[in-house]
C-alpha cells in the first residue's frame, strides 16, 4: 500500500469501498478516484486512442488526458470518459477502464502500436482509397470507427434531473486558489454580491498541497461562507465566458433527490479570473508510460491525499518547482534516484538543498528513453548535446518506479481569451499572458503570471526531441513529436493546420498539456518564434460539459409548452385523438368505440352536412384592432378593402408578405367604426401580430390605431350544419336574426353568456362561431350539446374540418400555400381592394415572375377511378411517363358527402386546363390519372350558407 500513515486532507475515519474493473478497493472520504487508485498501487488505468498504449495517471486535475474511465451509478447513470482525477470517491463507486479488449492489461489493439511507423499523422488521408469507390464506407470505415472512440456511449435514458439558475453578481471570481480567495474576500468587503466558484470539490487550489497554509485557508473559507452576500460554488466549472460578462458555470451536485447538475448563467459587473496555471510535461521517448507524472501532481497526491505514487523517484526538471515536488516526496518517505536538470545548472540554493538531502542532480541532462511495460521501471539519462537532444552514447541507466516531469508552467488564459481578450507573449516567463481585455475583467495570480518564476523556455525544452521516437506531446490522441515534424514537412504550417492534421490538442483535455509543446515544436521546425506562430483559438467549454446541464428542465412534457384549448378536457373525456399544431394540442377526431380515423371522420363530416357539428376553434389567432384609423391601417396591410365594410359585417381577409406571397388569412369582423375583430391561422397568431405591430410602430406611426392579442381571451365554438340555427337560436338573446346574414357579427348573449356571435362558415354549411370568454366556453359548449342532442349534434375534429373545407375548395395557409403562392395563384384575386393605392406585397404582384401564364394555380383534382386517393405532396405531371413536374397535390381526402375522393393541388396554368387529365406520381405503383376540375366540389353557388 502506498497510503502514508499520516497527513493529507482525507477523512481516515470514513473508509469508502469502490471497484475498478471488477476488483474491490478502499479509499477514504476526500479521495478522488485517482488518489484512491494510486493509494492501492494501481497505475495502469487506460489505453490511448490510436496505438492503445498503456496509460497511467499524469495529473491531479482537469488537464488529465489518460485516466479516463467509465463511471456506473446504475441504469441510465453510466457515463464515459470521466477524468478519475475529478471524480470524488463515494461509497460503492463502480468504475471501469475503457477502449481495451479483452482486458486493460492485455489489449489486442495494442498491436496497432507495432505499426506505428505506418500510422503516423494523417495516414488515413493517404490510403483506404480502394478497392472500388465505396471501399472506405463499406470496408475500412467500420474498422476505423471500432478502433476509435474511447468510452461507451450511455445506453439507457438518463433519469437524473438538471437545474438552471440565472444569477447576478457585482463580482464573479473564477478559481478559489490563494489569489481567488483573496479577490473574493476583497470583493465581499467592498459590499455587493460575490460568487466564488472552483472546479475542485474543495476550495484552496494550490494551498490544498501546502499543509502549513491550511489553518488560514480554513479561516478564510469560514469568513466567506458566513457572509450572506457571498455564494460559494464548489465542483463548479466556469466553462463559457460570453459577451458583456455573461459567464456560464456547470455545477455538479449529485444530490440524493436526483438533481445531478445545475447550469448557472451569471451576469457579473466585474469578473476576476484566478484560474492558475498548468504544469507542462516534457517530450522524450517513452514519456507516456504509467508512472510518468507531472511533478506538482505527485506533490498533491503526497500532501493533499497522503499517497506516495512511487517509492523510488526520479525527476526530469526544467523549472525550479520540480525540486519542491521532489523534496516533498522525499519527506513523505520516497527514495530519490536522481534529478535530471535540463538546464545548464539549477539555482545555487536548490543545489545546496539537494546536496543537504543527498539528492543526486545531473546538470544539463535529458531522458534518452524509459523502460517498463505496464509501469515504468527505469530510464536512460544522458547529457544534452548542442541541439538539446540527450546523447544516447553517453547514457546511464537509472531505476525508478515514478518519474516526475517539471516542464514549467502555462498560465490558464482560456476564459480570458474566450472573452475576446488579447494575449501578449511574455518572453521572461515564456508564456502567453492576458493583455488588453474587452470586458470588465481582471486576471490575478498564476493565470496573470504572478508568482511564476522563469524556467527553461519551452522551445529549448523541446529542442532535440523532434526526431526522438515515441516522444508523446498529446498522450490521449497519441500525437508524437515526429507527427508534428511530418505535418510541417507536408506543408501544414499554420498552427491551426498542424492541429487538425495531427489532431494535437483535439482530445478531451483540449490541449491543456499539449498545445504549448506542439507550438514549440512547430516554431522549431519553421525557425520562427513562439508568438509568431501563435496559439489556436480557445473555445467553450473550458472542460467537457454534460448535454443535460445545457438542456436543463426542458425535457419530456416541459420540452416545449403544451398549450391546450378551453375544450381540451372535455375532448379528452370523449376519447378524442389529438394532433400537435405548433405548441397546441388539437382534437383531430372523436372515434366511437372501434372506429378507425376514416370511419370517425366520415361520420363527423356527414353529421355537419346533414344535421349539425360542433368544433373547438379557440386556437385561431385573434387580434382586436382599435382606434380611429383602424380601418385605414387594415387597408394598408391586408389586400382587402375595409373602410366601407359595414358595422356588424365580416370579410375574409388575406395578408401577404412584401414579396407578394400569401402569409396568413382569416375572417375579420367589424364591431364598430373603430373596432375590428381579426382572426388569423393558429400557426400565424404570434407572427401576424408581430408583423402588424412592426408596420404600426415604424411604418405608419402617424395612424391612431392599437393592436391587442385576444387569442386566449376568447373561446370559439363553431356550430356548422343545416340544423345549426335550430340548435343555437333558443339559446341566443339580444340578436335581430332578420339582420344577421352570412358574414355578419353581433354582440349578444348565448346561454346567458355575453358573446360575440359570428355567422361564418369554413364548412360551406350554415355556420356560426360563438365567441365567449374562454372560462365560459365549457359551459356554453355543454348548453349547445344539450340543445343539439335532439338534432344529432356531433363533435368533430381538425381532420373533418380539413375535409369539409376541401370539399368547398377553401385553402389552408401552410397546406395549399407554402410561401411561394400569390393571391391570383390561389384564385383569390377577387379579395383584392381594386381602388386601394397600396397594401403589403402589392408592388411585388407586378414583378415579371408573378405575371407568367404558367404560374401554378389552385385547382380541384378528381381521380378517374373514383376510388383511389392521390398522395398529399404527389407531383403532378402532364403524362404518365413525363418527368417534368407541373405542380403538386396539396390536399387529398375521402369525401363521405360526395362519395368519391377529392383533392386540391397547384398546377401550372391550372385554371386554363379544367377538364384535362393529369397524373399524380405514386411512391409504389403507376401514376394516378386525375381530372382537373374547379376547386369547389360542393354547392358552388353557396346556397347552403344562406339556409
Amino acid at each position: 500500500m502506498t497510503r502514508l500513515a499520516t497527513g493529507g486532507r482525507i477523512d481516515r475515519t470514513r473508509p469508502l469501498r469502490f471497484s475498478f474493473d471488477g476488483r474491490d478497493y478502499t479509499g477514504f472520504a476526500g479521495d478522488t478516484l485517482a488518489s484512491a487508485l494510486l493509494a492501492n498501487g494501481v497505475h495502469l488505468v487506460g489505453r490511448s486512442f490510436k496505438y492503445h498504449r498503456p496509460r497511467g495517471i499524469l495529473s491531479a486535475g482537469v488537464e488529465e488526458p489518460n485516466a479516463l474511465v467509465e463511471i456506473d451509478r446504475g441504469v441510465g447513470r453510466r457515463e464515459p470518459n470521466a477524468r478519475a482525477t475529478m471524480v470524488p470517491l463515494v461509497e460503492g463507486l463502480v468504475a471501469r477502464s475503457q477502449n481495451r479488449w479483452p482486458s486493460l492489461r492485455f489489449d489486442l489493439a495494442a498491436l496497432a502500436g507495432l505499426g506505428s511507423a505506418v500510422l503516423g499523422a494523417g495516414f488515413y488521408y493517404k490510403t483506404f482509397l480502394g478497392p472500388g469507390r465505396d471501399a472506405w464506407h463499406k470496408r475500412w470505415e467500420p474498422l476505423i470507427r471500432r478502433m476509435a472512440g474511447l468510452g461507451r456511449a450511455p445506453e439507457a435514458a438518463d433519469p437524473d434531473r438538471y437545474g438552471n439558475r440565472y444569477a447576478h453578481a457585482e463580482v464573479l471570481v473564477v478559481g478559489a486558489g490563494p489569489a481567488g480567495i483573496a479577490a473574493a474576500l476583497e470583493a465581499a468587503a467592498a459590499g455587493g454580491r460575490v460568487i466564488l466558484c472552483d472546479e475542485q470539490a474543495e476550495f484552496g487550489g494550490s494551498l490544498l498541497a501546502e499543509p502549513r497554509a491550511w489553518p488560514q485557508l480554513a479561516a478564510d473559507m469560514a469568513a466567506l461562507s458566513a457572509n450572506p452576500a457571498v455564494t460559494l460554488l464548489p465542483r463548479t466549472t466556469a466553462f463559457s465566458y460570453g459577451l458583456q460578462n455573461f459567464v456560464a458555470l456547470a455545477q455538479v451536485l449529485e444530490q440524493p433527490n436526483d438533481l445531478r447538475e445545475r447550469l448557472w448563467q451569471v451576469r457579473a459587473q466585474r469578473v476576476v479570473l484566478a484560474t492558475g496555471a498548468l504544469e507542462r510535461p516534457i517530450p522524450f521517448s517513452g514519456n507516456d508510460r504509467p508512472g510518468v507524472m507531472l511533478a506538482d501532481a505527485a506533490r498533491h497526491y503526497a500532501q493533499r491525499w497522503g499517497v506516495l505514487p512511487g517509492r523510488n523517484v526520479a525527476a526530469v526538471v526544467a523549472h525550479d518547482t520540480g525540486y519542491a515536488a521532489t523534496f516533498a516526496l522525499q519527506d513523505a518517505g520516497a527514495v530519490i534516484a536522481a534529478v535530471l536538470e535540463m538546464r545548464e545548472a539549477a539555482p545555487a540554493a536548490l543545489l545546496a538543498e539537494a546536496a543537504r538531502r543527498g539528492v543526486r542532480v545531473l546538470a544539463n541532462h535529458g531522458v534518452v528513453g524509459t523502460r517498463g511495460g505496464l509501469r515504468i521501471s527505469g530510464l536512460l539519462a544522458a547529457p544534452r548535446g548542442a541541439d538539446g537532444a540527450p546523447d544516447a552514447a553517453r547514457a546511464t541507466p537509472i531505476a525508478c518506479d515514478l518519474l516526475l516531469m517539471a516542464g514549467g508552467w502555462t498560465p490558464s488564459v482560456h476564459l480570458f481569451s474566450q472573452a475576446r481578450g488579447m494575449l501578449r507573449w511574455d518572453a521572461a516567463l515564456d508564456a502567453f499572458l492576458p493583455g488588453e481585455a474587452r470586458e470588465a475583467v481582471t486576471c490575478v495570480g498564476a493565470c496573470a503570471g504572478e508568482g511564476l518564476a522563469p524556467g527553461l523556455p519551452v522551445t529549448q525544452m523541446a529542442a532535440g526531441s523532434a526526431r526522438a521516437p515515441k516522444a508523446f506531446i498529446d498522450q490521449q490522441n497519441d500525437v508524437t513529436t515526429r507527427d508534428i515534424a511530418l505535418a510541417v514537412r507536408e506543408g501544414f504550417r499554420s498552427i491551426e493546420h498542424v492541429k487538425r492534421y495531427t489532431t494535437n490538442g483535439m482530445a478531451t483535455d483540449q490541449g491543456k498539456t499539449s498545445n504549448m509543446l506542439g507550438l514549440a515544436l512547430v516554431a522549431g521546425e519553421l525557425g520562427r518564434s513562439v508568438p509568431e506562430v501563435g496559439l489556436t483559438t480557445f473555445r467553450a467549454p473550458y472542460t467537457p460539459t454534460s448535454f443535460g446541464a445545457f438542456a436543463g428542465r426542458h425535457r419530456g412534457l416541459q420540452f416545449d409548452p403544451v398549450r391546450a384549448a378551453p375544450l381540451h378536457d372535455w375532448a379528452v373525456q370523449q376519447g378524442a385523438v389529438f394532433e400537435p399544431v405548433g405548441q397546441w394540442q388539437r382534437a383531430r377526431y372523436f372515434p366511437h368505440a372501434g372506429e378507425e380515423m376514416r370511419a370517425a371522420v366520415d361520420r363527423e363530416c356527414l353529421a355537419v352536412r346533414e344535421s349539425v357539428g360542433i368544433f373547438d376553434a379557440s386556437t385561431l389567432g385573434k387580434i382586436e384592432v382599435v382606434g380611429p384609423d383602424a380601418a385605414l391601417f387594415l387597408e394598408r396591410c391586408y389586400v382587402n378593402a375595409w373602410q366601407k365594410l359595414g358595422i356588424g359585417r365580416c370579410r375574409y381577409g388575406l395578408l401577404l408578405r412584401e414579396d407578394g406571397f400569401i402569409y396568413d388569412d382569416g375572417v375579420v369582423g367589424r364591431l364598430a367604426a373603430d373596432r375590428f375583430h381579426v382572426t388569423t391561422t393558429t400557426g400565424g397568431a404570434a407572427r401576424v401580430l408581430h408583423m402588424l405591430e412592426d408596420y404600426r410602430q415604424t411604418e405608419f406611426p402617424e395612424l391612431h390605431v392599437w393592436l391587442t392579442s385576444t387569442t386566449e381571451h376568447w373561446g370559439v365554438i363553431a356550430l356548422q350544419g343545416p340544423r345549426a340555427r335550430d340548435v343555437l337560436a333558443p339559446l341566443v338573446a339580444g340578436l335581430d336574426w332578420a339582420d344577421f346574414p352570412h358574414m355578419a357579427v353581433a354582440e349578444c348573449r348565448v346561454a346567458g353568456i355575453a358573446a360575440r356571435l359570428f355567422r361564418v362558415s369554413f364548412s360551406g354549411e350554415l355556420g356560426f362561431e360563438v365567441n365567449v370568454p374562454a372560462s365560459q366556453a365549457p359551459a356554453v359548449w355543454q348548453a349547445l350539446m344539450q340543445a343539439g342532442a335532439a338534432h344529432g349534434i356531433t363533435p368533430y375534429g381538425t381532420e373533418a374540418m380539413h375535409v369539409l373545407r376541401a370539399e368547398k375548395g377553401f385553402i389552408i395557409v401552410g397546406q395549399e400555400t407554402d410561401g411561394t403562392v400569390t393571391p391570383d395563384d390561389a384564385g383569390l384575386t377577387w379579395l383584392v381592394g381594386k381602388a386601394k393605392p397600396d397594401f403589403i406585397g402589392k408592388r411585388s404582384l407586378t414583378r415579371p415572375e408573378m405575371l407568367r401564364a404558367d404560374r401554378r394555380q389552385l385547382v380541384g383534382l378528381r381521380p378517374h377511378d373514383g376510388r383511389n386517393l392521390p398522395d398529399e405532396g404527389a407531383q403532378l405531371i402532364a403524362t404518365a411517363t413525363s418527368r417534368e413536374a407541373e405542380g403538386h397535390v396539396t390536399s387529398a381526402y375521402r369525401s363521405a358527402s360526395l362519395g368519391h375522393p377529392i383533392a386540391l393541388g397547384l398546377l401550372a396554368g391550372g385554371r386554363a386546363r379544367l377538364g384535362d387529365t393529369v397524373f399524380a406520381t405514386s411512391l409504389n405503383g403507376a401514376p394516378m390519372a386525375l381530372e382537373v376540375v374547379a376547386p369547389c366540389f360542393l354547392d358552388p353557388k353557396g346556397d347552403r350558407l344562406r339556409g
Partner: protein
Amino acid sequence: MSGFSAFRLLREALRGQSGWEPQWRAPAQPQAEYDVVIVGGGGHGLATAYYLAKEHRVGRIAVLEKGWIGGGNTGRNTTIIRSNYLFPESAALYDHAVQLWEGLSQELNYNVMFSPRGVLMLAHNVHDEQSFRRHVHANRLAGVDNEWLDAEACRAFCPPLDIHQQRYPVLGGALQRRGGVARHDAVAWGYARAASALGVDIIQNCEVTGITRGVDGGVTGLSTSRGEVRTRKVGVVAAGSTSLVMAMAGVRMPLESFPLQALVSEPVKPVFPCVVMSNTVHAYISQSDKGELVIGAGTDQYPSYSQAGGVQILSHTLEAICELFPMFRRMRMLRSWGGIVDTTTDRSPIIGLTPVPGLYVNCGWGTGGFKATPGSGHVFAATIARGEPHPIAAPFSLDRFVTGRLIDEAAAAAVAH
C-alpha cells in the same frame, strides 16, 4: 504530385517518413498576372480552381485566401451531405454534387472519407409529414433517391432514436440513403493538393483589399495585402465575407451573414449509424469516425462576423438532441465553435455573373454549403471559363431577386413559416 497509397505509406514508413513533400505549393507572393483569380480558399474556392485547371485547361490560376485554407465554413460545418431538396433546380445542383462526392477520393487521390450512411429527416406532426412526402415525390421524379419510413422503420434505421418521446413523438421520416458525411478538412486539402499539382497558385494570408476596374467597367485586377495582381476574371467564393468583397466592386448583395454554431461531444465507441435531422425539434446530428457526436444548431438571431454565438443557442439545440436521444443527456460537449453563413431571402445559393464584367460570384449557401462543395466548384468553374452560366447554375442567378423567380427551399421545407 506523388501518389498516395497503402504501398507508399509502407515505403515511407521504412524511410522514416522522409519522402513526403508539401501537399500543396505555397508561394509567398502572388504572380503579377493570372488568367483567373479565385477569392476565398475554402472548399468551394479550391474546387473551382481545380476544375478550371483540370476541365477547362485555364492556364494561370490563383486562389487567394486571407487566412489558412479550409479555415472558414469548410472547417466549421457539421459535414452533412444530401441532395433531397424540393425544387428540381436545387435537386439537380445538390445531386450533381453527391454524384461527384461518390468518386471524389479516387478523383483527388485523397481519402475525403465520403460515407453515404443515410440522412433521415424526422416528421413530428401532420404538417411535417405532408412536407417530407412532397419532398419524396419531387425527389423521385427528379431522379434523386428518397423514401418515406414510418416511425418504427426510423427507429430500426437509427436505434438510439426515441420515437415515443412525450412532447413531439416521431411520426416517420424521409430517408436519403445516398446522403451522409465526409471529413471536411480532407476536402480542402485534397482539392488544394490536386489543384496545386495542376499549377494553381494557392496563396494564404493574402487578403483582397480592392477590386480594380477598367474604363469599360470590367475587372482588371485585385489589390491584396501582398501586392497588386492583374486579371480580367475574378471568382468571388468568400461565403460570409462575400458582401465585403463585392462591395469593393460597388456591387450590393442580397445577403446577411449570421453566426452558425456547431459542437462535438467527447469521442465514444460507434453508437450513431447515420445522420438525423429534425426541423420541428430543431437539431441535426451524426457521429464522426473519431467517435465524436457532431451536432449542429440554428443560426444566432443577429448578423455577426465574430464566428461566435450565444450559449442559449447551444442549450436550445441540446434540449432537442436530448429529447430525440435521451441516453445522450450524460454525454459531454467537448467543443463548440461558430462560422459565418451568408443567407439569401430564399435560402438558395447565388452562382453566376454579376453586373461587373469579369466578376463572378458563388455564395449564399447559408447553412448548407458543405454538401454542395464539388458540384458548386464544378459548375462555377464552367461558368467562369465560358463566361455564361452552366445549365445547372443558371436558375441561381443574382437577378432572380429582381425578377422574383425565387427558389424558396426554406418556405417549402416548412421551416417554421
